């Protein structure tokens, strides 16, 4: 039973356009969400996070939106750059879970020059 789902295994976007990566979750106890980026042969690196008390968090070109009623979050990258090409993992956790992150299966983003 996958509690965090990234239903699009891949996404291709033209350079300069917006990339939108989606993530759905089923566990209503989750109250903190993170996005990680992973290049080949490297470990995931933290990108941006959002607490359930917010519905939006922005950091430069990256914005995460949270829709609690739909149990959905999305990562927007604008403008997309070729260096953004990587696998993006969505992760979720809840207070009292002893920091047990549950990850989605990732979306491969390819930004075309």
């Amino acid at each position: 039973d996958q509690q965090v789902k990234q239903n699009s295994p891949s996404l291709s976007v033209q350079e300069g356009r917006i990339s939108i990566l989606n993530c759905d979750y089923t566990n209503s106890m989750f109250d903190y969400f993170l996005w990680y980026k992973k290049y080949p042969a490297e470990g995931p690196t933290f990108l941006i996070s959002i607490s359930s008390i917010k519905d939006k968090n922005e950091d430069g070109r990256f914005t995460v939106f949270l829709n609690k009623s739909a149990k959905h979050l999305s990562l927007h990258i604008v403008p997309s750059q070729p260096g953004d090409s990587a696998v993006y993992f969505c992760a979720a956790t809840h207070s009292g879970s002893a920091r047990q992150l549950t990850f989605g299966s990732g979306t491969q983003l390819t930004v075309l020059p």
Partner: protein
Amino acid sequence: DTAVSQTPKYLVTQMGNDKSIKCEQNLGHDTMYWYKQDSKKFLKIMFSYNNKELIINETVPNRFSPKSPDKAHLNLHINSLELGDSAVYFCASSPNFDNSPLHFGNGTRLTVT
């Protein structure tokens, strides 16, 4: 000056062997983790140590035994390796047991033949 380093990067071994993966972090973090990325690309937590104390021990065969000699190191020993153990294993650390993001190592690709 790698923050979280794990060795070896690649490990090819035969069924039934015993092997270890080492992990060290120089970030001064209190908490360390082992994650397994399976064939479906999901990252799943295996163990977590906080200040050398085992905090999380997910449903992992007892052939897997973590060892934390000090809070900068968390090694993973695997006995009687099986084909299904083939995966990429990631070590990670965080400052403590709160919502601060994880810092991952670059992974160890284990192949059991």
